[in-house]
């Protein structure tokens, strides 16, 4: 069994989606406990991918193919996780803010968060402040993650946070922001709880904000 788990970890780290799917099937068939596969193999594999990105071994394409391998393995694992009542690390509502259609960075953040065991509700691109607020109002949300690429749409991050406050919801969720024109200073100014400069940083930030 350890061979199978090792091959799963390697397949995710190296972005081999087909091999990852094959290994997760073999692990489940061999009787491995779904929660343990996620916790002890897949999450550490994505942590390793994040580490390789941070230290400059991996770039966007390597991150994307690893995230793809993780996603395909997770799709096979998820029904079993639900059946065994394994809880996610937290629930994140993510989206690119109003007026902005760019999503490569946001998608990568979503995939990395899923890879870290979070449940992600991806609202897509051009998401109005109202939509973010409605998603939070629905309940069960720990974090919202706002993304922007365009300088011109940056103000919509602040509008979203203001609307959460007006709705009395700001205290109920953590707010994380990211994207090319964003930085720490701006995150503080607009009242976010944190800024991450890339997808690996977003995972660390999300973990910190939910106290995981």
């Amino acid at each position, binding site marked *: 069994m350890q061979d199978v788990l090792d091959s799963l970890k390697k397949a995710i780290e190296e972005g081999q989606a087909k091999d990852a799917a094959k290994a997760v099937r073999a692990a489940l068939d061999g009787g491995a406990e779904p929660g343990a596969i996620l916790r002890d193999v897949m999450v550490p594999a994505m942590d390793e991918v994040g580490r390789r990105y941070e230290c400059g071994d991996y*770039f966007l394409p390597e991150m994307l*193919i690893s995230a793809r391998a993780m996603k395909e393995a997770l799709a096979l694992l998820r029904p079993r996780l639900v059946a065994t009542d394994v809880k996610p690390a937290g629930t994140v509502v993510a989206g690119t803010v109003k*007026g902005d259609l760019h999503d490569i960075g946001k998608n990568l953040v979503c995939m990395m968060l899923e890879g870290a065991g979070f449940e992600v509700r991806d609202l897509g691109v*051009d998401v109005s402040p109202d939509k973010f607020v409605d998603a939070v109002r629905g309940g069960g949300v720990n974090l919202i993650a706002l993304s922007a690429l365009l300088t011109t749409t940056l103000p919509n991050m602040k509008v979203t946070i203001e609307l959460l406050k007006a709705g009395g919801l700001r205290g109920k969720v953590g707010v994380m922001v990211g994207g*090319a024109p964003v930085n720490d200073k701006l995150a503080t100014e607009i009242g976010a709880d944190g800024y991450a400069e890339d997808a690996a940083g977003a995972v660390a930030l999300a973990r910190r904000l939910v106290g995981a």
Partner: protein
Amino acid sequence: MNGRERVRKALRREETDRPPIDLGSTPVTGIAASTYYRVRKALGLGDHPVTVGEPFQILAELEEPVRRVLGVDTIGIWNPTNMFGFRNEGWKPWTLPDGTPGLVPRDFQVDVDANGDTLIYPKGDRAAKPSGRLPKGGYYFDSIVRQDPIDEERLDPRDWAEQFEPYSDEDLRYFEDTSRRLHAETDYALVGNFWQGGIGDIAHVPGPGLTHPKGLRDPNLWYEYLLTHTEYIQGIFDIQADVALANLELYRQVMGDRIEVLVMSGTDFGGQQRPLCSPRLFDQLWKPLYKELNDWVHRHTEWKVFFHSCGAVAPLLDAFVEAGVDILNPVQCSAAGMDPATLKAKYGDRLVFWGGGVDTQKTLPFGTAEEVRAEVRERVRIFGRGGGFVFNTVHNIQARTPTENVLAMYEEVRAPARA
């Protein structure tokens, strides 16, 4: 000293009375139409509709009086067909989303959907699926990904061939006539917007100018395919480079020595923190083709090769230089590793910096006029030393940028020579 002389000297790394200024010679050194409208009005040069010369990013086509007043030293010769695949001719009124009166080409065909988003049709063909979306309240179009289901067994780089075509006789006549006219009638440095060496430019992956793009068109998947389907990507790159090489020869025949600068590539290789791909992948997939194209230019012309890549590209600059790049744009100093003094010290003898004049993500749109002046002063001091610098903002001047900041920026660049 006129603009052409000023740019020539800067390209030869000789100091000039002030840095040459570019505005609007390319679609990456321009100004948002709405900002242009306000600037022009503030200059007392009229409030007539703005000609939107680049509909994708909704950029203004500069007019002669504005060029003169701001001290612009360049003029671009653009491709007569734009990103959405129709010709820039037959102008008609269109009001920008923020109410600015504009003029757009005859084949600029749009619909507003139930969300209030504006959708545009490729080649002006309403029978096709829209290829661009301008979100309600937004300031640019973005490509709509029209991705047919992919059959991995049948992926063929030749699906992309329609995107790379030989110049038509009509295009070549346009280039020849325009370059002759601008060279004879103006004293600007002429910039040739070739762009066809932009190997695998992500902005063109969705094929916004095509009626029905075939093959891989989803930018998210594209970045994965660089690693998982490298042979397919290489095949597309090879087709593109072959056509670009053939078109370079045609371009040389009609442009001659009238242009100073050839805009070769707009492929973006940098994110805010690091390159978008590893230097190893760049060396494998891009560098040999860039070298072939740039070497051709250097062997056959006096043109300087202009290379646009946003972002943190410092780890790739040695490879750019080895591949024959002469001019780097937009010099995004806010990105990691792109410190102006370091770049100038390390690459000032090999690269001309065309851009980097002021940040457009923070300082110019959100700073005070005094902060803009201070940054411009600093950048001119660093990049301008010994020539090798053409002043331009880091990428286009964005919508909603305060007029006061734009005017302060140009005043500062034109300020009398400093001690």
